[in-house]
């Protein structure tokens, strides 16, 4: 085997970006859908963790990882639905409800997930795109999980939906102006609640990826803020699903930095490299926010940008 030298690092970061980005991608796509309808769901971190637990438990009990993904999506949709219904009440603060749903989601996930910390559930399949190379690192980096591919297709499909379909237009109208939507005979509350439920289902699938592929096990530390970072990433991506795909890859690469440097023997400042995704998210938020002008692309009814 030839010695790759320092080429190992960018290669591992590329592979890591593909591996780590999938949960970011699904959660941010779900959040784009929810926020485009004019509502924010900060609780997707809890949905992500609950999705990870339910996917792992169902995959273990049934032996089928895809049933696990389905269960995670159903659980996520339920969380989204509850969030959507509560936020439909007048004068209820949707940001605070998101925090509460985050606490409840994590609490329920840890509560029901305790018996599943030990057992081993089947993994989701992945496809090797590195067959042309003899270098094991290249092959490892290009082993792409099916969910990543589904997420990539979904990003483009959602972009097309917002651009060219009636459903996309309805969601955008509801998100931009409740009054205009009412004038058109739409039911803003119902549409928002449905969009929030669908967004929750996406976040649940992101969680399924965490427990069923990478890192591929269930424990209480499975997510450390990925769900929250994905929400911040939506602002960075300007509510554009395709931009979310790029941003998710970028964040995945940042998330892979710590483990990669550790694997090549860099131990100095190890913990600080693990903070890289959070620092990147914060930096991106600072760079892309503005105190004076409304953010381009932001849905008009979104409480976070008002």
């Amino acid at each position, binding site marked *: 085997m030839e010695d790759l030298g320092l080429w190992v690092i960018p290669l591992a970061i590329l592979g890591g970006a593909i591996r780590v980005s999938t949960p970011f991608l699904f959660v941010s796509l779900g959040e784009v859908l929810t926020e485009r309808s004019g509502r924010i769901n900060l609780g997707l971190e809890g949905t992500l963790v609950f999705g990870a637990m339910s996917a792992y438990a169902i995959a273990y009990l049934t032996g089928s990882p895809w049933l696990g993904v389905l269960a995670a999506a159903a659980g996520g949709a339920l969380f989204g639905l509850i969030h959507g219904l509560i936020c439909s009440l007048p004068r209820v603060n949707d940001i605070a409800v998101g925090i509460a*749903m985050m606490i409840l989601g994590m*609490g329920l996930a840890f509560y029901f997930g*305790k018996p599943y910390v030990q057992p081993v559930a089947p993994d989701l399949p992945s496809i090797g795109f590195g067959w042309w190379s003899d270098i094991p690192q290249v092959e490892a980096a290009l082993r792409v999980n099916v969910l990543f591919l589904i997420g990539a297709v979904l990003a483009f499909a959602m972009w097309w939906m917002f651009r060219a379909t009636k459903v996309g237009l309805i969601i955008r109208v509801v998100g931009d102006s409740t009054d205009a939507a009412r004038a058109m005979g739409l039911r803003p509350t119902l549409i928002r609640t449905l969009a929030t439920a669908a967004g929750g289902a996406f976040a649940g699938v992101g969680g399924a990826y965490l427990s069923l592929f990478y890192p591929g096990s269930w424990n209480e530390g499975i997510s450390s*803020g990925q769900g929250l970072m994905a929400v911040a990433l939506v602002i960075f991506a300007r509510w554009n699903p395709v931009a979310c795909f790029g941003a998710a890859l970028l964040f995945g690469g940042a998330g892979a930095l710590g483990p990669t440097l550790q694997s090549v023997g860099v131990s100095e400042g190890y*913990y600080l490299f693990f*903070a890289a995704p959070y620092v990147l998210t914060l930096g991106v938020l600072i760079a892309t926010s503005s105190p004076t002008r409304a953010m381009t692309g932001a849905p008009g009814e979104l409480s976070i940008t008002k």
Partner: protein
Amino acid sequence: MTDQTVSTQLDTPSPNGFLGMLARRSEAVILPLAALLVGFAVFSIFLLLQGKSPTEFFALTYRAGFGTAFSWQNTLSRTAPLLFAALCVALPARLGLVVIGGEGAIVLGGVAAGAMGALLAHSSGLIAVPMMVASAMIVGGLWIGSVGALRYYRGVNETIASLLMAYIAIAVMNHLVEGPLRDPASLNKPSTAPLADNLRVGDIPGWEVHWGLAFGVLCCVLAWGLIDKTTWGFAARIAGGNMRAAQVQGLPVGRLIVGFTALGGALAGLAGYFEVTAVHGAANASLATGYGYTGILIAFLARHNPLAIIPVAILLAGFEASSGLIQRRMDLPNATTLVLQGFVFISILMSDTLYGRFKVFAPECWRSA
């Protein structure tokens, strides 16, 4: 951002006499209490579905949290950091900001106190103790104050920024206590050097609860005075009600936001100081135990009223103090407390929709005939 949970009603003399005022005030007491009971009820149904007894749960909570002198000591010791953590949420909330990253200020305040204590190990306590307090408060204040500054000067959402910074704070703490600040003698649990005895904080005489509780209660009373009795608090409440109107009126909104967030962060830093000096004896990963997150729930339950924070913090500290016994006796996972907190939190937020809906609470209803 509009925040409907912050009351901006000013205490104007009620034209409807004492009963009317009492009716209006009692709405802010009765609705949260009812929401708390609804949260408990939903949690009880959850336990029943699991085949567990809610009666046993609440009886054990009472016994282990409030039943004996010993359990009161346990509960009150846990109350201290919760008071500070809740103030870190309640003070910015007066300006309509939802800051949820108090955990970061607690952790870094504790590390600052531990590092300062190790640095000044050989100097007199008269110098070292004020330096430790100051460093914890300054670090915490800068940490959360910068969240406020980012919000005002850059328009960065404070909820997301503060939580991201809490994750960063924990990474920084791990880096410091496992690297530059590590005491070589701490093998199993990397920590800063243990504090000298004269730098540690003892118990309130006759209480067997450390001084953090007394200072926490004092800070709650002072914070109440700041918000309710000073022009600064008045200006903050105006700005919390309508940021733009406050700006038009010429109120220093930027300074208010940075000041209130920094003050909240400084108090959270003080929680870290007391955790290190009164409980752990050195700064280590035990600082990140989630007090900051429980503080969020306490502040919302207390409707961001600093005086109401005191009883609510004691109640939730009691639940945390009893969770160990409940886990053992009822064979429940330790996440049970988190589930309970989630139900109560959602219930209290839903109750926001009920304010002004009941005629009993309207002063007009009590107009003396």
